[in-house]
């Protein structure tokens, strides 16, 4: 990762696709599709995660996400949220690929409803099969540097460790392991899940992550559009701080004004 000459040239690339925004936002939990679209706009995100669900055949005319967030302008990243086995996740993504026509997807295989913690055995199994089928999976995972490496070896195009449980808003619980994953990865690393407020997003970027993925932190804010703006600024600030290289910490004070010439 080299420092860019200017912020405008600071981009990141996943599976051959280059993006300027390092913020990926979810499209769940919003009060309305209008609010959702406004928040995506304010966030500056170029990628949104979407779910794959049955159509409502009793009311086929109800408004659709694609009417509000244009898939030609914003990259839809189909997600397997709600899948608890590799088989379910693979089946969901095969349908997603047919619906959308692209191979870049987000894989998450959950272990239990209470914590929504990833089931890494099933996640790794699904990653291997998806890669064989030509998918480019960005993979949600535990904040475990060894598991992250195994996913990368299996062909994950991005590693997306949780900062804290999905929807918890607790912020990054283990900065040490997130940093270890970043240092060990040859593919982009994005903190996915657990971000609660802007400082959490900035912290992920300060740790050297390539990006941050969030949904609830924006959707459940009192003012989602304003929080989307805050997250955009936080991700950019954190990224700039990472590139700038922070000062060393000291245990004691060091005066900012010169001691020479003191009266």
């Amino acid at each position, binding site marked *: 990762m080299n420092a860019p000459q200017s912020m405008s040239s600071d981009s990141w690339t996943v599976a051959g696709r280059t993006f300027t925004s390092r913020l990926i936002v979810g499209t769940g939990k*919003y009060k309305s599709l209008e609010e959702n679209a406004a928040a995506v706009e304010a966030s500056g995100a170029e990628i949104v995660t979407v*779910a794959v669900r049955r*159509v409502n055949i009793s009311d086929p005319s109800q408004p659709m996400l694609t009417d509000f967030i244009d898939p030609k302008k914003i990259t839809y990243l189909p997600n397997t*949220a709600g899948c608890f086995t590799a088989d379910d996740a693979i089946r969901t993504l095969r349908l997603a690929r*047919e619906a959308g026509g692209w191979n870049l997807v987000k894989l998450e295989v959950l272990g239990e409803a209470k914590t929504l913690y990833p089931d890494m055995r099933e996640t790794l199994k699904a990653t291997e099969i998806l890669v064989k089928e030509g998918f480019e999976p960005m993979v949600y995972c535990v904040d475990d540097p060894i598991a992250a490496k195994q996913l990368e070896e299996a062909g994950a195009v991005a590693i997306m460790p949780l900062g804290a449980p999905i929807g918890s808003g607790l912020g990054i619980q283990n900065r040490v392991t997130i940093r270890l994953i970043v240092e060990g990865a040859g593919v982009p690393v994005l903190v996915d899940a657990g971000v609660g407020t802007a400082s959490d997003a900035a912290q992920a970027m300060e740790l050297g992550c390539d990006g941050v993925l969030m949904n609830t932190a924006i959707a459940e804010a009192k003012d989602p559009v304003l929080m989307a703006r805050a997250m955009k600024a936080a991700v950019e600030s954190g990224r700039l701080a990472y590139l700038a290289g922070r000062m060393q910490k000291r245990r004691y004070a060091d005066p900012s004004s010169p001691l020479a010439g003191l009266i």
Partner: protein
Amino acid sequence: MTGGLSVAAMLGELGLDPRKVAVERNLEIVPRGTLGDVAVAEGDAFEIVHFVGGG
């Protein structure tokens, strides 16, 4: 489901835009290009999905 109908025609009867959905028939994807060729048979199980808001 009535026999002889194509999957594309079935989607039309349901009021669905084939460009916005994906169809699985008996656990196999029906590629979009073949929706008009594949006939709906008695006892077929379909999943018809689309993208919705999610995290």
